[in-house]
Every structure is written in C-alpha cells, then in structure tokens.
C-alpha cells in the first residue's frame, strides 16, 4: 500500500465510524484507538457544527422567538446516539443530523406559520450539499461532470431536490438576516424550489417551473431531449434553455456518449 493510500485510510477511519470499528482498520494498528476515537468525535462535532450553523442560519435568526438554536442538537443525546454511525459528508448522516435540528426547533411550538417550510428548506440544503465532490480538476481542466463529453441523454443528478412549499420563502429569507423587531412574514403562496449542487460542492437554489419539474421527472439518462420533450408535451427549444440552466446549477448532467 502506498503512503498516499495509507493517508486515505487514516482519513477514512476518522470520517467513517463503522469503518473505525471494522477488523480491517483495527488490524492495521496504525494509531492509538482511543486517541483516534476522541479525535473522530471532535471532528464530527466540528463538521456538523459548521454545516448546521451555515444551513440553518435562518431558523438561527429566529432563535429569539423559538427559544432554540439549531446547533444545540450537537451537544444533546440524539447526536451522541448518532456518533457510532456517522460518516462525515454522507447524505445519510446529513439527513439524520438535519432531522435532529428540524425536530428540536420545530417542536418549540413557535407561532411562525412558515417555520415548517423553513426547516424543510434548510434541511434540504444541508442534505444536497453532502456527498462526494471533485476537489481538483484534471490536467485538462475539465471535471468530467456537467456538460463534458459528447452530449446524449440528460440525467438528473443524484441528490437534486425539488421542494414543494406552502409559503414563498425566497421573499422572507433575506429579511430574516437583517435586524427586525416583528418576525418577518412570508406570503402564503404555493412555491416550488429546486435545490442542486455542482460537482465542486456549490449548492444553488432556483425557483422551479413546469418545464423544470418535467425535466427532473423524465431525465433518466436514457431518453434523449426530444423524447423528454415529447413525453412532457413541451417544445424542444423551450426545454433546451431550461436544460442549460439546470446543467449550470448541477441538477442535470449528460451521460457521456460511448
């Protein structure tokens, strides 16, 4: 095994609690298991502190009303129970930690009509951000992701989320981060939001349309754009423009031609 592979093994042991418990890792005897476990717990709390504070910043801004800060979950029993299964950066762990926050803040019983939608939105952001990413481009400067290779069939990128909300959250989000005395209100209006992540890890949100919804429903990596347009009852030209935007956001990629 190369030194670089050994380093990857140490990084994995720190990031992946089930692997840390495995016979394969323990047999290596690379480091004091107690020290490794302590540092892994420290890293897990740090990793999710940063993400909870960032992605739940809007409900954090409402803590004066809810009486509950999102990051408080990281020192509560629910998080301790998760520790043996935590894999840093995985969608499964992101979903579990986000759910702890949704329950903790949501159960506060605060009279904020859109709080449920807000927590759903913030949790979706945190889950979409998770998953492997490209840390460095190849020598030719391409990332092998959206838009590379010969274009054939559009495919919805795993992890992309379409949120159906009862309140128009984008109206209220910036207001929540500014000073306020009365809780800013969100219009009660059916709103569809697309949450997607680029291969390099940038999370983006966009309002969804019928064309977006159709593309995300039908883009399976096998149907051509013409077939998707036909099945959706839309013009190819109309879909092309939407598709370009979705590829930019990281919601859709093209299967590479073979």
């Amino acid at each position, binding site marked *: 095994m190369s*030194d670089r592979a050994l380093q990857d093994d140490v*990084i994995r042991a720190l990031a992946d609690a089930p692997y840390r418990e495995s016979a394969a890792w323990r047999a290596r005897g690379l*480091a004091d298991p107690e020290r490794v476990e302590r540092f892994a717990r420290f890293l897990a709390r740090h990793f999710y502190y940063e993400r909870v504070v960032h992605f739940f910043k809007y409900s954090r801004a409402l803590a004066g009303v809810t009486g509950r800060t999102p990051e408080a979950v990281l020192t509560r029993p629910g998080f301790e129970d998760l520790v043996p299964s935590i894999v840093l*950066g995985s969608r499964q762990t992101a979903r579990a930690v986000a759910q702890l926050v949704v329950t903790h803040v949501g159960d506060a019983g605060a009279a904020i009509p859109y709080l449920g939608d807000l927590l759903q939105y913030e949790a979706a952001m945190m889950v979409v951000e998770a998953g492997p990413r490209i840390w460095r481009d190849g020598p030719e*400067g391409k990332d092998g992701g959206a838009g590379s290779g010969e274009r054939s069939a559009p495919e919805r990128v795993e992890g992309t989320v379409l949120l159906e909300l009862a309140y128009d959250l984008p109206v209220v989000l910036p207001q929540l981060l500014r000073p306020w005395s009365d809780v800013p209100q969100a219009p009660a209006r059916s709103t569809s939001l697309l949450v997607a992540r680029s291969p390099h890890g940038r999370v983006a949100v966009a309002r969804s349309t019928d064309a977006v919804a159709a593309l995300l429903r039908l883009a399976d990596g096998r149907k051509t754009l013409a077939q998707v347009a036909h099945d959706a009852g839309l013009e190819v030209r109309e879909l092309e423009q939407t598709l370009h935007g979705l590829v930019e956001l990281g919601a859709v990629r093209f299967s590479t031609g073979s």
Partner: protein
Amino acid sequence: MASLSIGAFYNPHLGAELVRAGGIDHLAMADPPAAGDPHWPAIRARYTLLLHDYLGQLSEPLDERSIERARTLAELYRTPWVAEHFQCLHTVDGTYNLNYVFPPLYTEDFLERFVRNATALKARLDQPLVMENIPGFFDVQASQLPEPVWLRRFFEATETGFLLDLPHVWLEAHYRVMKPERWLARFPLDRVVELHVAGVEEDRDLAGPWIAPAEPSDQMLGFLAHAVTQCPQAKAVTFDAFSPSLTAEALFRSVERIREAL
C-alpha cells in the same frame, strides 16, 4: 531583527471596529471578502493584508482553477506572502473529507510530494510562499520522520518560508508531555517569516486542550516572547482567531497584550 508587524485575522463581523482601530499593523484574510461587505474597501485601503485562505492540499498538485484563484486573491490583497498549510484532509477520490486541518504522514513519499507541489505553486506566484505547521493529536505508525526533521528538509528543498503556529507546537508538546520550549527548539526556526499565536481551551471530546478562537494566556505569550528570540527572520506576529463568536474586545485586547509581550 527588524520591527515586527503585529496583526490579527479579518473577522468581517468586526469590520466596523477594525476600520476605526489603532494598534493593528496587518490583517490576515481567511476568506475572500463577501460581495456586500461594506467595510471591505476601507479595510483594503488601510491595512497590509496577508493571504491565508485554503488554496488546496499540496499532497497533490494544485489545479489551474486553484492557482488562478490564489493569484487573483494575492493581487487583490497586495499580500507580501502567500500562506498554505501542511495538510492532507481529503481522500484522493473525494469520498472522505475531514473539513479540518490534518497533517500528512511524515514520510519520504509525502515529503517528495509536498516539495514537488509547493515548488510548482511557488513558481506560479508573484509573492513568496510560506507554509504553516499543523498539529497532530495522535502519531501514525507509518510516519518515518519526526515532524521537525520533515519540515526542515521541506524548507531546505523548497526555500519557502515557515509560518510557525505556536499553539500548534504548544499542543503537540502538551500531548507528548514535553516542555514546549524543548519541542520548539527542534523546528527550523531560522526559516520563520510569520508567527501565529492564540489561546487554547479544554475540549470535551479530546479531554484536553485544543485550538480555540480565544485570547492567549500569559503562559502562551511568554512562549511567544521566547519563540520570537529564536526566529531571526520573523517579520510578523498574527493573533490567530477567526470566528463569528470572537468579540472586538477580545481581538483588540489580545493584539495589545501580544505587543506588550514583545
């Protein structure tokens, strides 16, 4: 030794206070300025700014995108040097990422990798490159060289500068049950360009002290005063605290105490 520049990190939530402040010679930039930061133009006009962002891990070559980003930030800040860390925190395939500074194995192979990739980065920058030491909480048996020896060989091969993080050295000494001054003496102090100093705090998970955005203790400031006498090329000392929880009082008091200690 020429007079030392004493500074801190730019904490955007303290932008208004930093614009008005006296007694701070430079600011290190951990993140690019936010698009809507109202204090940024005045901060840029007033201070010497040090590029201290995450550029990439030098166990692998930096890609063109990262190099261009480093060059752009260096030009924006007019930085006298560019800093990176001796770290390797994500796997080659991108599956696992610690999101926290973590040192490489101190082996011949990693030394060759860091020398090659730092040399390549240095050649693409218009400013000198300095590299910061990273603390280990545990030793990995696969390491072949003591960290100070590995660092000395790196600096000799690359002729880059050393950004000496003193709390990192202090923590390693603590967990090795050594006097910090004895552990420090093994490092290539003749290469030091900048020093970082900050506080440490007890961490529940680690059951011991660790890096924290806190004021340095008197003991840490005494360690700083000693270290500076051992670093003949040092040009700057930076209070290493970057956190939304940091108060203006703590930042200014720390810088003032650093100045008094020196």
